[in-house]
């Protein structure tokens, strides 16, 4: 990199503002970045730090009323931020390509992949339709889609998530741009797919000498692929430098705590380290005396002696192609003959990629689905055989679920107080309205939200706070068994640490038994006592957590452990 040459892309003193009724929100300020050809620059930070704003500013696609208030963007030394609309449009897609986070929603569902590729190429390149079609097939081949001649005629919904992201990449590079902006390109994907997509991106950058900016909140991705990193915090770049240096020896305290907060995959720690720089030390949770506290009452469930939850030969199928003729019906087996036991007081982890059937198991246990075959026994009682609503409700009270998406799992029209009170009222766990209110306030206090939260609506809270509401709601029935389905995968790393610590504390205090579902191996390692690995609906291996991580038996488990993104300095 010679200092005298003009950089491929240069961002100078960028400032982006979003005027609103409450005043001007500054999404990015004093951002100075350069990118060379063949280089991968990572931009890392938490949600709301302004990472995506930078990419949108470069593309000239800041959503109004947002605007670029200051600064310059230069492509090969030429200013592009003030270009007229039409000239900027010709740069987009032609000289700067962009990839979005969610491959499932990035493609027009009504057009074939070929139509979308050809349309893009014909817009920018001076080639015939026939040439464009031939190139479309080549491109799909380059991004690693098997059987491209046929697949090019398919619609987006006929591709899996990982394959769709390959299509998105093909679309972004089809006019051979000089710069590629990738906004969280692998966040919505499984670990193994993530590794493949990152490989593909790296290969394309090297082969074509493109410059790439990759925006992510995932330190693992940064370690995996980038040459340099810029750390963003509250709209500013607080630190920038070679990846190796930032990961091993960061200067800024925020970078330091962000890196420390990534759960280490290779050893078990007692508590998740918090991103202290923003969180101002510790949670404000108060200790409680279970002998007198409401949560401690009615916990004498009696000891059944055996395991709390037993699953035997559980099978669940979904109808994928309905037909009048039974032989033509097509079924997808989501859970295939799974048997496992969860002991009282233990945290049992289920790990696997999306579509492996782990969430279906959780839904079968709490009765959202009815299994096709097999038995589920909870505290010695057969759940699958129960018919009486009263009986079922008695056991349901003892098991509660926390869902992945904190945005859609709370009713937006209900106040937090009513959300948390609903299970108490439903199961008639309190004598009077005043008592319900008292319990709700207490629960909210306990999960670290404070009683003032009770009168507000879910949309007033952040993702992490909403997940705390979900936890309070789950605790409201004084459960014995808690099912957590990816409780933190929608959250930032700092928030994740808080929520996981809270769950851990509650589990210890209340002696809860937990089924913890995650695709994130480091998190599983910190949280769980025993782990089961699932793939294609089958349970491949069950082992003590440490044993699983140090001596995996099944080849697929080994494969998963190999794919786990690791910080280079820890390897």
């Amino acid at each position, binding site marked *: 990199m010679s200092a005298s040459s003009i950089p491929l892309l240069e961002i100078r003193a960028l400032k982006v503002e979003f005027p609103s009724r409450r005043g001007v929100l500054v999404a990015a300020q004093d951002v100075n970045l350069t990118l060379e050809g063949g280089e991968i620059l990572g931009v890392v930070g938490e949600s709301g730090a302004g990472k995506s704003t930078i990419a949108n500013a470069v593309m000239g696609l800041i959503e109004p009323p947002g605007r670029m208030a200051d600064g310059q963007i230069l492509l090969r030394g030429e200013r592009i931020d003030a270009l007229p609309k039409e000239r900027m449009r010709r740069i*987009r897609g032609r000289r700067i390509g962009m990839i979005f986070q969610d491959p499932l929603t990035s493609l027009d569902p*009504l057009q074939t992949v070929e139509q979308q590729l050809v349309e893009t190429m014909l817009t920018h390149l001076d080639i015939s339709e026939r040439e464009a079609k031939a190139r479309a097939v080549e491109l799909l081949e380059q991004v690693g889609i098997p059987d491209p001649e046929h697949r090019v005629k398919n619609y987006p919904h006929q591709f899996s998530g990982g394959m769709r992201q390959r299509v998105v990449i093909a679309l972004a590079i089809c006019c051979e741009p000089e710069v590629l902006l990738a906004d969280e390109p692998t966040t919505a994907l499984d670990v193994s797919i993530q590794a493949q997509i990152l490989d593909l991106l790296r290969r394309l950058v090297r082969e074509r000498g493109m410059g790439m900016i990759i925006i992510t909140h995932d330190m693992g991705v940064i370690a995996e692929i980038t040459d340099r990193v810029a750390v963003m915090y509250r709209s500013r770049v607080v630190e920038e430098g070679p990846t190796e240096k930032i990961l091993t020896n960061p200067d800024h305290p925020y970078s330091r705590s962000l890196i420390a907060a990534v759960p280490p995959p290779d050893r078990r720690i007692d508590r998740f380290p918090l991103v202290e720089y923003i969180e101002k030390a510790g949670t404000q949770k108060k200790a409680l005396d279970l002998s007198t506290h409401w949560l401690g009452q009615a916990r004498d469930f009696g000891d059944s002696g055996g395991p709390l939850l037993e699953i035997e030969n559980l099978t669940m199928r979904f109808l994928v192609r309905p037909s009048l003729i039974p032989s033509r019906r097509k079924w997808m087996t989501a859970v295939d003959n799974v048997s496992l036991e969860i002991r009282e007081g233990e945290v049992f982890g289920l790990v696997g990629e999306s579509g492996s059937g782990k969430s279906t198991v959780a839904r079968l246990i709490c009765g959202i689905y009815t299994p096709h075959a097999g038995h589920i026994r909870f505290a010695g009682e057969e759940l699958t055989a129960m018919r009486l609503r009263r009986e079922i409700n008695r056991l349901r009270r003892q098991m509660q679920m926390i869902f992945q998406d904190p945005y859609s799992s709370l009713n937006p029209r209900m106040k937090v107080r009513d959300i948390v009170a609903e299970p108490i009222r439903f199961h008639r766990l309190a004598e009077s309205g005043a008592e319900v209110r008292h319990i709700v306030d207490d629960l909210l206090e306990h999960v670290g939200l404070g009683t003032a939260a009770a009168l507000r609506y879910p949309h007033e809270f952040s993702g992490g706070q909403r997940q705390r509401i979900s936890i309070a709601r789950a605790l409201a029935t004084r459960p014995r068994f808690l099912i957590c389905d990816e409780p933190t995968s929608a959250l930032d790393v700092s928030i994740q640490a808080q929520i996981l610590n809270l769950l851990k504390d509650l589990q210890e205090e209340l002696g809860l038994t937990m089924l913890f579902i995650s695709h994130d191996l480091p998190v599983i390692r910190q949280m769980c006592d025993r782990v089961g690995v699932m793939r294609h609906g089958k349970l491949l291996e069950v082992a003590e957590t440490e044993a699983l991580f140090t001596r995996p038996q099944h080849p697929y488990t080994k494969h998963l452990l190999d794919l786990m993104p690791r910080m280079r300095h820890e390897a």
Partner: protein
Amino acid sequence: MLLFIARRLAQSVLVMLTVALIAFTLFQYVGDPINNMVDQDTSLAERERIRKQLGLDDPVHVQFWRFVQNAAHGEFGISYRLRKPVAELIAERFPATLELSMISAILALAIGIPMGIYTALNRERWPAKLFMTLSLVGVSLPTFLIGIFLILIFGVQLRWLPTFGRGEVVQLGWWSTGLLTASGLKSLIMPAITLAVFQMTLIVRLVRAEMLEVMRTDYIKFARARGLKERAINFGHALKNTLVPVITIIGLQVGSIIAFAIITESVFQWPGMGLLFVQAISEVDIPVMAAYLMLIALVFVIINLIVDILYVVIDPRLRVQS
């Protein structure tokens, strides 16, 4: 695809049978048909004889089956009021209603959809805001009021357009059309506008809301990021996706244009089925009411079938994968 259509057809038959049952019960429970046919001084024995002759003493399911068979052949008996076969009455009136409905549907779609697109794409411009305000007026004003206003202004004050009837019609076989004469066309203008206003404003608002929703999606953002032309994004990608949900509503609306032409037809004394139906109600002319009910149900069923097929044509996700 074939299985899909077959299943939809089976459902349609079920719907038609249910409606037939309702129409049939009209005969059973709204007055005694014999009373409606005979004089005061007909003897009881005579009444019994007619009853037997008409098969009205058969078991209910036999009568219902006969009703369904006759209905399938388009026979609904004789109108009590006009003493003419109902099928003939309907055949006379149906072209008038269908012409009026189709013209207003075309009007509503041809103006509503482009206006919806315009207001969605140029949300901040003043014409868009004006359209939206006007559409609010259109949605809230009752149809008959609009009709009466139009009559007052263009018929009474300015004397440009006739205020009632169809004008001169031309017979094409059994079909009578008003579209081929100047007076027929002139007569059509006001009723068609009156009938179209509500549907049009509804379509404007619907298309606008759906389009705004689509413009926020990732694939539109990605299309922008690929540097596609504004026109290609708006019409190639956004509009097509907007139409998927809009088609259902439009289908139902076209059905209701035909069904609810009643009010407009009364206001303009339009000699269509709606007017026939209103008169039938006031005189308890049950065969006409039953026939009208069945016909409207049939129209809805057919439109829904078309909408379902259109769905599959537009949205590849609904096509069965081979």
